């Protein structure tokens, strides 16, 4: 390529980037923001005033262009609060940083999950905040928590976060297939399994749907998921099976899922009208 053409290519890209950055209006920053930052950072102020400053700053941060000049100072202050403050200011700062997918906040949360003595928030809260970033750094801990934690809330949060992890297919298969498992854990696992491995899900799901002794809520979730997958025809006799299910179940959610499946699935030869 001719060097002048190369330079022109970059110049054009820079121009487009500049246009994008000012497209929403290059308006002036809110003059109150520096005062709010100063207030938030002032340890001599009552905590309630500092929290109010943080709440307003978080609101202002959504006005992206106008807030942009203050963003580095804002993030630096939030990190300082995470390292030095106590709840509730600590929690608010962690949440604000987690929404920014800030690495410092993620590391603090992961450290706390690995070593409860260093935890700044409880495991459920840590998982909730880490779930803001699918690329966050805690998949090994998630599997441990999903597999063994005694707290059902923590388990469910861990399972939801693992839904992006292709290595967790085996875990989801095991949980969704086990009638002794927590119902919500099974439904979360069913949805995750369908997203990660459609074939594995379809096989397990039909077994569950056909098991009258299994949990009806889990059966309904599986049937609903099967019904929205255009690749699922069910195979011979499935339509009849689902119609029978619709006609005999006393569980409204299961009946509804069956009805929806029948409406959306292609008719099989020999299906009753």
């Amino acid at each position, binding site marked *: 390529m001719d060097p002048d053409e*190369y330079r022109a290519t970059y110049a054009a890209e820079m121009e487009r980037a*500049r246009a994008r950055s000012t497209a929403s209006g290059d308006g002036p920053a809110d003059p109150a923001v520096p005062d709010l930052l100063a207030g938030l950072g002032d340890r001599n102020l009552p905590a309630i005033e500092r929290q109010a400053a943080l709440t307003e700053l978080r609101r202002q941060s959504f006005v992206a262009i106008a807030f942009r000049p203050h963003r580095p100072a804002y993030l630096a202050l939030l990190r300082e609060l995470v390292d030095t403050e106590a709840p509730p200011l600590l929690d608010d700062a962690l949440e604000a940083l987690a929404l920014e997918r800030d690495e410092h906040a993620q590391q603090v949360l992961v450290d706390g999950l690995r070593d409860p003595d260093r935890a700044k928030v409880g495991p459920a809260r840590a998982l909730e905040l880490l779930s803001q970033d699918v690329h966050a750094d805690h998949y090994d801990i998630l599997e441990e928590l999903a597999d063994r934690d005694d707290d059902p809330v923590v388990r469910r949060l861990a399972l939801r976060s693992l839904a992006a992890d292709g290595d967790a297919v085996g875990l989801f298969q095991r949980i969704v297939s086990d009638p002794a498992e927590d119902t919500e854990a099974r439904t979360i696992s069913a949805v995750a399994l369908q997203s990660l491995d459609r074939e594995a899900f379809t096989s397990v799901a039909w077994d569950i749907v056909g098991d009258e002794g299994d949990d009806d809520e889990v059966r309904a979730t599986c049937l609903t998921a099967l019904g929205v997958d255009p690749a699922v025809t069910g195979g011979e006799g499935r339509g009849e099976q689902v119609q029978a299910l619709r006609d005999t179940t006393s569980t409204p959610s299961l009946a509804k899922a069956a009805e929806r499946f029948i409406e959306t699935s292609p008719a099989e030869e020999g299906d009753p009208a």
Partner: protein
Amino acid sequence: MTGTAERQAIALVDAVRADPSRRDELVPLLSERHPVHAGRSTAATARIRAWVLAACAEVGLPDEAVPFVREELESGIEAAPVAAAARAARSRPPLPDLEVLLLTAFASMRARDAPVSLASLRPGWPAPDATTALAELVATARWLGGRDDAPSLDRAAWSELDGSDLAPDVRRALGELLETVPEGHCCGAAPEAPTATTAPAVGIDLGARLEVVVEDHAGARHPLPDLLVGRPTAVAFFYTRCENPNKCSSTVTKLGHLQEELARRGADEVGLLLLTYDPAYDTPDRLSRYAEGRGLRLGGTARAGRAVQGHDRLDATLALQAGSAGGLVNRHAVELLLVDPRGTVAAAWSRTRWEPAEVADRLLALTPVPR
């Protein structure tokens, strides 16, 4: 930071800081394949890379680390490694196209700037050495402008960057920079365009019995050699969950432009193959939607696919520049291979932009196997 790999990395960086003649030993730490990055989040691996690049800035940037610096400035979107790359660029003679790289990085980071501390791997806050990516980019521009061995800065380009959306310290630094560039000064000699690199993949025979099966965007399965042997093929790597618009989204869009360029030249028999780093997640449906949503028309000799068998083998054979945490890619380079009709990798672009017109030239120069 825990783990053997991390402790070893810390020890190595400390040793190199104490003995800068060992600077070349830092380079492997920058690769996505290094164990220090395995299992780390995207943000954590960015921080590690920034820390290593900052060490390079102290001891002198090794030659083999230059592609990593170029890559961060060209396509990086995380503040810490971009800041560190800008700083590292000041530790050796200026790169020929450094000004363009700095301006490109400034555009990328304008809406993404964040505070950065490069003094340690796990900085506490407040950090006494806190800086930002934009501040480091302007500092490097100022350094560049003061060099006798570099062209004059393009005053107009830097002047246009000013705006009320910039932090006060960045605006101040820009103003100080412009005071050092006299009015009427423009660029010196235009830089050479980037071209194919000497990536490790060059020379590798993918047409041999490499047991890799690719499922394409239509759900059809093919042994990989069947997709390559018999025609020159451009093979690009990507994944649909990439969050860096300067990488995968741009790569696929440019592949569409390459397709248009080849059609314009009447090159019907050139193959285009888009392979995912994330075969567990990137199903045929996801591959199709991603590619076609970016203007790449799939069908005929243009395919998107995932290795449903042998992905690890392909990864090892090509030494793909991608790392993972759990089942997710945590970081990857821009990678484009040109494969000749025998199935051998003839050229590669790794960690650098590629332009459709030049790639088309190189593809068409690869001689097809006589029928």
